[in-house]
C-alpha cells in the first residue's frame, strides 16, 4: 500500500462516523439509480418487445405517388401565358396492389429477417349476444411459406384459450382477442357472423378457433385474425394487401431501413420508433426523470464528502504541515484527500451495485398483473451493465468534484504558516 493511501485510510477510519453519511448516500444513490433504471427500462423493453411481436419492426403500406408540380408557360402575348398551380407534395394510394413483387424486393434488404402480407379492414361482428365493430386481419398462415405471419409475430404464443391447430388447419376459423371475446360473450367453438358494412346483407359465419391475449388493450378489443384467403373472399380483394409486416435482425436500424425502403419501393414505410413515438418519449422521459431524482442521493453524497473532507483538512492542518516538512509534496497532500474520497467511492459503489442488483431481483419477484399496453404478471426489470456503469459514473463525477476543492485547499497550505499559526 502506498504511503499516501495508507495515510488516507487512517484519516478516513478516524473519521468513519462523519464519512458514514457520505458512504450511505453513495450506496443509496448508486443502488436506487440502478433499480429505477432497471424498472423503467423493464417497462420500456417489455413495451417494445410487445409492439415488435405484434406489429413488427417496419410496416410497409400505402403506395406513394408524387403529385404534379406547379407549371408555368409563357406565350408571346402575355394574355396567352398561363400557370397551373398544384399543391406540391405526395399522394398516398391506399394498399399494396402487388404484394408479391414488393416482398421480393424487400428480400434484398440484408437486415430483413421476415415479412408477411396482411389484408386489413373494419368489419361488424355479431355474436348471439351482441354486435360490435372490429378490425379484420387476413394473415398468411401457410406453414410451407417463408412469409408466414407467425414468423413475424408472436401471435402463436399469445393464445390463451382454444386450439391454434384448429385455426391453422381449418378454413372459416378465426382468432379473437380476449377483450372482444368478453364483450361478445364468446369462447372457442362458438360461431360469430362478420359483415363488411352495416347495410350489407351478406354475412358470413366463422367459428372461433382460439382466443389470444397480447396484453395491448387496443389490439385485444378489436383485432380478429382469419386466413388470408378467407379475408380476400370476404373483402372481395383477390390480390392486394393492406400492408406488409417486416421484422428485422437489428431492430434499432429500423428508421434507416424504413427510409431506404420508402425511397426505393415507393411505399410508405413506418418504423416502430415512429409508430409508437409518443409512448417511447414517455418512457424516455421517465428514465431521465428517475435518473435525475435518484441522483439527488449522489449529490448529497458529494456534498457530505466535500464537507467531511473540509473538516478533516481543518483538523489536520498540523499533520499536513509536518508531512510537508518531511518532504511530502502538495500533490502528495492532495492525493491523500483524493484517496479518501476514492475509498468511500469504491466501497459505496460496490455496496450500491450490490444493493441495486439485490433490490432489482426482489422487485422482479413482485407479482404485478398488468394489461393495457403490454402484458406482464411480475414487475418487469431489465438487467443491463450500462445501468451500473452510469450509476457509478455519476457517483464518481459528483463525489470527486466535491473532493477536489478540499484536496486543493489542503495542498495549498503553507507549512510555515500552519506551524506559525497563521494559516487561514
Amino acid at each position, binding site marked *: 500500500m502506498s504511503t499516501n493511501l495508507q495515510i488516507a485510510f487512517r484519516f478516513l*477510519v478516524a473519521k468513519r462516523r462523519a464519512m458514514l453519511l457520505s458512504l450511505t448516500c453513495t450506496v443509496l444513490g448508486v443502488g436506487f439509480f440502478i433499480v429505477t433504471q432497471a424498472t423503467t427500462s423493464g417497462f420500456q423493453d417489455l413495451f417494445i418487445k410487445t409492439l415488435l411481436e405484434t406489429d413488427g419492426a417496419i410496416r410497409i403500406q400505402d403506395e406513394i405517388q408524387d403529385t404534379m408540380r406547379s407549371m408555368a408557360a409563357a406565350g408571346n402575348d402575355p394574355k396567352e401565358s398561363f400557370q397551373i398551380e398544384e399543391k406540391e407534395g405526395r399522394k398516398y394510394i391506399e394498399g399494396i396492389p402487388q404484394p408479391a413483387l414488393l416482398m421480393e424486393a424487400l428480400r434484398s434488404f440484408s437486415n430483413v429477417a421476415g415479412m408477411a402480407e396482411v389484408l386489413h379492414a373494419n368489419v361488424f361482428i355479431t355474436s348471439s349476444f351482441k354486435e360490435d365493430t372490429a378490425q379484420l386481419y387476413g394473415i398468411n398462415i401457410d406453414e410451407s411459406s417463408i412469409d408466414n405471419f407467425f414468423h413475424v409475430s408472436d401471435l402463436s404464443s399469445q393464445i390463451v384459450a382454444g386450439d391454434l391447430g384448429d385455426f391453422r388447419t381449418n378454413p372459416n376459423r378465426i382468432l379473437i382477442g380476449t377483450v372482444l371475446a368478453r364483450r361478445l360473450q364468446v369462447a372457442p367453438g362458438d360461431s360469430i357472423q362478420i359483415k363488411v358494412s352495416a347495410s350489407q346483407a351478406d354475412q358470413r359465419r366463422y367459428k372461433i378457433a382460439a382466443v389470444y391475449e397480447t396484453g395491448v388493450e387496443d389490439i385485444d378489443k378489436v383485432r380478429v385474425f382469419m386466413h388470408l384467403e378467407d379475408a380476400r373472399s370476404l373483402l372481395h380483394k383477390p390480390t392486394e394487401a393492406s400492408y406488409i409486416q417486416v421484422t428485422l435482425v437489428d431492430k434499432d436500424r429500423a428508421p434507416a431501413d424504413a427510409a431506404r425502403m420508402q425511397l426505393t419501393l415507393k411505399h410508405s414505410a413506418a418504423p416502430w420508433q415512429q409508430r409508437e413515438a409518443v409512448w417511447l418519449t414517455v418512457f424516455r422521459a421517465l428514465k431521465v426523470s428517475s435518473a435525475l431524482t435518484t441522483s439527488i442521493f449522489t449529490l448529497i453524497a458529494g456534498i457530505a464528502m466535500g464537507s467531511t473532507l473540509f473538516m478533516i483538512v481543518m483538523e489536520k492542518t*498540523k499533520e499536513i504541515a509536518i508531512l510537508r516538512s*518531511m*518532504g511530502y509534496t*502538495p500533490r502528495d497532500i492532495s492525493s491523500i484527500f483524493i484517496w479518501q474520497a476514492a475509498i468511500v467511492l469504491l466501497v459505496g459503489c460496490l455496496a450500491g451495485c450490490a444493493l441495486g442488483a439485490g433490490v432489482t431481483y426482489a422487485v422482479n419477484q413482485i407479482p404485478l398483473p398488468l394489461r393495457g399496453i403490454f402484458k406482464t404478471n411480475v414487475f418487469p426489470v431489465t438487467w443491463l451493465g450500462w445501468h451500473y456503469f452510469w450509476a457509478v459514473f455519476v457517483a464518481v463525477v459528483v463525489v470527486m468534484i466535491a473532493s477536489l476543492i478540499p484536496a486543493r485547499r489542503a495542498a495549498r497550505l503553507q507549512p510555515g504558516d500552519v*506551524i506559525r499559526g497563521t494559516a487561514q
Partner: protein
Amino acid sequence: MNAATATAADAPDPQIAIRCEGLHRYLGQGEGRVHVLRGVSFEAKRGQVYAIVGPSGCGKSTLLYLLGLLDQPDKGHIWIDRHLMSNSGDEARTAARGEHIGFVFQFHFLMQEFTSLENVMMPMRKLGRLSVEAMAERARSLLTAVGLGDKTHRLGTQLSGGEQQRVAVARALANQPAIILADEPTGNLDAKNSTIVFDLLTRLAKENGQAIVLVTHNPEIANRCDVIRPMRDGLFV
C-alpha cells in the same frame, strides 16, 4: 549580493551544512506588516549545536522556518549543503527538506492515527531509499536509541508528552539529514524530560555529524550548546 551572483561557490566550506546571508522577512499585511528579519546572516557547521535565543517576537522561529525552507525570504539567500535554495521552486525546496533537514517542533505533531514506528518511518517512506524492512529496522533502532524500543507499536495517543517528543526526535533523524532544526523542542516538557530530549538530540546528531540549530527560551539548554546566537529585533546581536 544579488541573486545572480549568489552561487554554490559562495559556500565553499564543506563543513558548513547550512548558511544564510542578508535574510529579510516581512510578516502580516497592510498596517500590520512587520519587518521581522532585518538582514540576518548565519551559518551552522556539521557536528555543532547552535542555540538561537532572544525575546519573543525577535524573529527566532521565523529564521528557523526560513532555514528549514518552510517559508521564503523576501530578500537574502540560503544555502543547504552548498546548494542555493532560497530562490528555488516549491518542488526543489520540498525535496531538500525531505533529504537534508529534520524538524523538531515545540508540539510533537505526531500523526495520532499511526504507531510510533510508523511515525518514524514516515519521512523514510517518502524519501524511498530503503526497503520497507530496512525502514522498519532503522525506525526500531532509532526508537530504541531514544528509549522507546518497547513502545514501537503504540499509537501517539498512548504515549506521554515526553515520549511523543522523543518519537519526534527519532522521526527528525530518520533520513539522516545534515541539519536538525528544532523550535523550542523542550518548551512543552518538564525539566526531566527536557534534559532527556536535549541530550538525545545532541548525542545522536553529534554521532552522525549533523548540524543542530535550536531555538529556545531555556537558558540551561542554551548554555549546553556549542554556540549561542542571541537575537533582538530581527538581527543577531
